[in-house]
């Protein structure tokens, strides 16, 4: 089967009656899971795998991947409307989404997010199609030394991008790295920071940490303040206004097409690298959107580009992540690991065999991502109104209801009461960080990258010795990191010099 034949066959399979209904149901399922805080893409896919046993390969792929494709879209909705990332990958959307909502522009934010997701996903899918022949070589450039250095590059971006100041962000990022060390060390089997507790032996779970830092902290804040989630908007927008705003938002995403393409490229590239995943990609894209924008100061206060950037990146990741999964059968993330097991259930093999014998299935995946996100966008638009109305509900009603959902979400992943406790502890920490202007995003990203950093440092040292950093790619990435950090420190220094002399005159 040639690639062209595979593409045509893949397309007609995707829209056939035997496949499309599964794709549709999967997409709606993913969207709903995405909207619910704490239930992530892994959850959606893990649930979906259990249905695959009796399905045909194409239908099964459409179902599981459709569910996965729309999770980030649903999560974006929740992030904007409730200041709670529906999933970890939407954490970057929190920087500008809620701020826009508070300005009464929730519809624009949602429209832009939805359209960016769709465009980003399409970009990733197209790149996946183009990259398949050369895939194997690209991924092989990134071994332990490269990934280790790249993780630090990502952390540097994180520390610089936040609306909080750089020093505090660095403190938070390093604290996050430290928290990732909790649990049994994978290399030496030593218990670290577990205080003898079996519950901590596996480390802190990502979902309750995210829920705590963002959702619970927000609930505490809301309870403190009273009122409703939408601060500036006394009443919900009318359905008509919201629809008008959504279309404006969609228009804005298309208008910023160049930004969408650049951020999608960031997402897809980072998706290719095993272990990085979409949350860091969204943050790096956010940093890029901010750095490249003339109106940097309005980021964090409701700039639509702060939504377009991360939302296009977090869906573009899938194309990249899928590429390495298909090419090697080596999943880049836990979602991809679950997808891979789904492929086994369906009797499909990854690797060169899939690229030659089952290339139509690869194109079913590609079209599933595109069509699934289109369905997500359209259905999501109709979800906005009921959800945005919910943001006007009084805190005294809202907080208990959402806390119940959050507690369920924290519990659901591992079925552990302990995780509800983790969410609450991190909620208090998150609230304090919010009040004291420490970056919660930096802490989270440090936490997420901690595993990759440690594992790859250890392997790099064992394999290449202490001078692994002198190899071409690590050296290049290190120089980029240092230059980036240095340049930002210099701008702070420069700005301070400019500002300080002016102060006495005021």
């Amino acid at each position, binding site marked *: 089967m040639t690639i062209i034949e595979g593409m045509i066959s893949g397309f007609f399979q995707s829209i056939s009656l035997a496949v499309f209904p599964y794709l549709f149901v999967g997409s709606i399922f993913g969207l709903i899971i995405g909207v619910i805080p704490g239930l992530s893409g892994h959850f959606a*896919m*893990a*649930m979906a*795998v*259990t249905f695959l*046993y009796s399905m045909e390969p194409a239908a099964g792929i459409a179902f599981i991947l459709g569910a996965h494709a729309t999770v980030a879209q649903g999560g974006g909705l929740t992030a904007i409307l409730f200041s709670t990332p529906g999933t970890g990958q939407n954490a970057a959307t929190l920087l500008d989404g809620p701020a826009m909502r508070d300005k009464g522009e929730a519809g624009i934010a949602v429209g832009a997010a939805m359209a960016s997701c769709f465009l980003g996903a399409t970009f990733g899918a197209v790149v996946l199609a183009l990259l398949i022949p050369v895939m*194997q070589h690209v*991924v*092989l450039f990134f*071994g*332990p030394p490269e990934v280790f250095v790249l993780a630090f590059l990502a952390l540097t971006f994180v520390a610089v991008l936040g609306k909080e100041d750089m020093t505090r962000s660095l403190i938070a990022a390093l604290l996050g790295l430290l928290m990732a060390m909790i649990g*049994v060390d*994978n*290399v*030496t*089997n030593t*218990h670290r920071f577990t205080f003898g507790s*079996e519950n901590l*032996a*596996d480390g802190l779970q990502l979902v309750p940490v995210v829920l705590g830092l963002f959702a619970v902290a927000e609930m505490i804040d809301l309870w403190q303040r009273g009122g409703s989630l939408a601060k500036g908007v006394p009443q919900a927008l009318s359905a008509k206004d919201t629809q008008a705003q959504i279309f404006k938002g969609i228009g804005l995403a298309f208008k910023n097409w160049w930004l969408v393409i650049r951020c999608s490229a960031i997402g897809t590239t980072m998706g290719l690298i*095993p272990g990085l995943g979409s949350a860091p990609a969204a943050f790096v894209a956010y940093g890029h959107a901010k750095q490249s924008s003339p109106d940097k100061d309005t980021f964090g206060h409701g700039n639509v580009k702060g939504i377009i950037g991360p939302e296009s990146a977090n869906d573009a990741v899938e194309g990249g992540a899928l590429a390495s999964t298909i090419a*090697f*059968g*080596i*999943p880049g993330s836990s979602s991809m*690991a*679950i997808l891979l*097991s*789904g492929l*086994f*259930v369906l*009797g499909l*093999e990854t*690797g*060169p*065999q899939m690229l030659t014998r089952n290339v139509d299935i690869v194109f079913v995946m590609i079209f599933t991502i595109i069509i699934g996100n289109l369905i997500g966008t359209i259905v999501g638009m109709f979800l906005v109104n009921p959800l945005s109305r919910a943001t006007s509900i009084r805190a005294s009603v809202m907080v208990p209801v959402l806390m119940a959902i959050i507690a369920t979400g924290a519990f659901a992943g*591992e*079925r552990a009461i302990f995780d509800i406790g983790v969410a609450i502890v991190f909620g208090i920490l998150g609230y304090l960080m919010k009040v004291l202007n420490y970056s919660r995003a930096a802490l989270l990203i440090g936490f997420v990258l901690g595993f990759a950093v440690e*594992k790859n440092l*250890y*392997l790099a040292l*064992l*394999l290449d010795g202490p001078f692994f950093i002198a190899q071409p790619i690590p050296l290049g990435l290190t120089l980029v990191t240092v230059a980036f950090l240095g340049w930002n420190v210099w701008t702070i220094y420069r700005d301070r010099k400019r500002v300080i002399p002016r102060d006495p005159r005021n």
Partner: protein
Amino acid sequence: MRRQFLKSAVAAAALVAALGMGAPATAQDAAAFYKDSVIKWIVPYDPGGGYDEYSRMIIPYFEKYTGARVDIVNMPGSGGMKGAVEIFNSPTDGLTVGIINGSAMVTNELAEIEGANYKVADYNFLGRMVADQRVMVASVQSGIKNFEDLRDNGKTEIIGATGLGGSTYVDAVIVGEVLEIDEKVVHGFDRSGDIRTAMLRGDVQTMWGSLGSALKGIQDGEHVVILHGEKSPTGILEGIPSIYDIANAMENGAERVKILESWEALSAVGRPVAAPPGVPEDRLAFLRNAFEQAMNDPEFVKGAVETERDLSFASGEQMNAIAKAATDLTPEVKEMFVKAIRGEI
């Protein structure tokens, strides 16, 4: 209200009496007990993993032969130990069973790793679903085509492995020690897929693993099998020397073979389905029988063949013997294994 309370109290008392006074338990009693009851099936790993898939494959047939409903509970944690401990300490009514990573649980128990609060030999096994055939593969790039290349090329081979105490690690260290392979074991990879990438990159040259997971790399022409632990190799392993062949040809061959046989006993534990100690005998016998029937159900076997899932059934009684053999080691061999598991070799 009060009357209702009294009613239920009387009912409860009657139930206790009925259970207590029951005539000598028979298979029929057990069948009646399981009919329409709910069995909790613990999977000590995340949904979507191999243990989860094996469980979901067999459960419809297990339901068929027990007449009970079977609910899967995923309980990941501590490398599978959390779920194993949960099974070990669950009620002895015969309504909780689960699949365990038998070989890893044995090594953790031997090395007295924190959290290994169970005794593998004390479980009541229903039987085994599958046991891995262990193989050592080399990447094509390394130029190693057989064991002679590995031994005689004058280089220190780098072997990739997952965590300390994991089977990829223990295999590499024990076999390396017994066969005096010039090797450096690099552990810390997340999964065997991770090691496979490192082999493609040329970071490591060889790895140990199960034949099932290595098969794909072999068929894709990325890997060659250079060693295996099968005494009578079949299929793809035919004609490749086993570790026993190599050991026999060396000095003190018999002694080396003895250690390797203990090592083999470890992998033979495989993936068994276990109930906690203390389950009433009639129920245990009933469950074992149902599991055996499920494992031999033609439709189940057909499904396993279609999805290329290996099966190697061992009965509950056989499993108890296998588990005993794996944990009952001579002091010298045990000391060596414990050192290997803890990374002290």
